[in-house]
């Protein structure tokens, strides 16, 4: 998740700045400046701050959705899914104990490993990182990804016992 947001931020810093500047600056600076002077309008300031936060998030998601390529969106969705599955397995291990340990290891490491491989695929296929992977075409990256994933699945399934 952190990777995603940071990627989104680094990918396009300029538009974010643009949207924040586009917000009518009437309330926020005023409230911020008036707050230390008068104590009473304090509750007033929180909704306005919330408002600004939701606005930031809204614009952020809007921007993320509009500027991110389809495949990267797909990658992010898959990674979110893997994180959820991984957390569920780990919670189950904490609550119900780790017997049989083999099964826990293989189940959890399948999910984590898949997440790592997917993250690698994302790094290799992001437009912004193109100059770092000159020799790796997106097709090549995907083929590597499929091969490594199959090996991972093979090992995990065998490790279940």
């Amino acid at each position: 998740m952190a990777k995603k947001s940071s990627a989104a931020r680094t990918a396009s810093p300029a538009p974010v700045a643009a949207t924040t500047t586009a917000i009518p600056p009437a309330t926020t600076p005023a409230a911020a400046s008036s707050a230390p002077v008068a104590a009473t309008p304090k509750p007033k300031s929180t909704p306005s701050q919330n408002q600004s936060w939701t606005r930031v998030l809204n614009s952020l998601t809007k921007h993320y959705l509009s500027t991110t390529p389809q495949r990267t969106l797909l990658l992010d969705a898959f990674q979110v899914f893997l994180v959820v599955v991984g957390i569920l397995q780990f919670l189950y291990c904490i609550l119900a104990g780790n017997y049989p340990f083999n099964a826990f290891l293989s189940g959890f490491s399948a999910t984590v490993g898949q997440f790592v491989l997917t993250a690698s695929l994302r790094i290799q296929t992001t437009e912004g990182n193109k100059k770092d992977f000159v020799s790796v075409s997106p097709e090549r990256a995907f083929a590597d990804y499929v091969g490594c994933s199959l090996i991972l699945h093979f090992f995990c399934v065998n490790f279940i016992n």
Partner: protein
Amino acid sequence: MRSLLSLIVFLFAVSVSAVSTTGNRLLAILDDVADKDNYSKFLGDLASRGFDLTFETPKSESLALFHLGERKYDHVIFFPTKTKGLGPNLTPNILVQFLNANGNVLVTLSSGVAAPNSLVSFLAELDIQLPADRTGLVVDHFNYDTASAADLHDVLLLPTPKTVRSDIKNIFGAAAPADSVIAFPRGVGAALGASELLTPIVRAPRNAYSYNPKEQAQVVDDLFAAGEQLSLVSSFQALNSARLVLLGSAELLQDKWFDEAEVTKVDGKKVKTYNREFAKRISAWTFQELGVLRVNWIEHHLSEEGAVNVSNPKIYRIKNKVSYTISLSEYTYDSWSAFNVPANDAIQLEFSMLSPFHRLALEFDKAHSTKDAAAYSAEFVLPDQHGIFNFKVNYKRPFLSNVEEKNTVSVRHMAHNEWPRSFAISGAWPWISGIGVTVVGWVAFCALWLYSAPPKGKKESKKTQ
């Protein structure tokens, strides 16, 4: 003709079976062979129980306990002898060798005759101390026969033996009539050491003491021992179950105290002696006719469902359920009967590697018992430890011959394919489905990835950039 022959064979079998478990060659050592007339009833009892008696004097040239390294006799009785030593054929060393070779010894003493040096040293070897000067006299001014020892108080009237401990069967006094006593005329008491192989059969009454009538006739100043310190009849059983009994009074075995001879207690009551039955039981115990245990068979096997049930396998696996059975018989005069463990006692099984991992009480197993053999069994789960283990039964009790049985087995660890599979354990299902979900999600992702390829033209235009 045939029936006559079978009758003879039967009689022969009976006469042979009615004897000790270790043999019937009995050597009696007397000062003078004519002395045996005093003991005619006792010796007659022995002969009727199937013993083959030989009489010798210590001076005899032909006397030898061993011939070509083998025992010549199975049992020896020492009657009091006036000689100071017993000669070169009965040195303490030879007597210890005789015990080590499973020979049994009954030693009788008398206060009138000093015990031979050889016997004193031999008894000291077994941690039995006799009074100084090799003689002594036990008297009791409260328990004596007023009829025969009105002045000297040296014919003690002892209550019939009780069990030493509550978990031991009463071998010597079990059949005694309620008010009978053992007449113990002119006897010598011994002091027993702390050896666990020694057990007193009859201790002196609380008021008895031992003194030297020759030197302490006037004033008794230095007592050898008094009260229950004095053991009047003592038993010793070696680790090889060879037995020795020290009988403080040889006169106890003489005819005049046998057969319901009447003695008078201090309170004037006339009671009958228990001497004959007591002498029979003492000699029977010494000569391995009583309290002899036999291990008939030992069997152990896997007791798991669906397992191959081979008897006494050499190897087991950790955490196997195993059952162990031992069959024991006890000999009584002429026959083997089922050995019943006394009420407060338990026979135990150890499963040990250096130290016991399990020590379990063996329970009576009716299914495997017969009339003349009692089976005891235990069922248990082997420890979670692989290695070389022993099934060990170590049953050593006073007045019973020692049982020490060791059966060695290997215990191996789990083979890799003997663990339960994860999918058979319901707790693993969430993780297994985690892998499934990951794989299915991955396949779906790959399909979508291929489906959502960006338009070619755009890509080419990017490449040209």
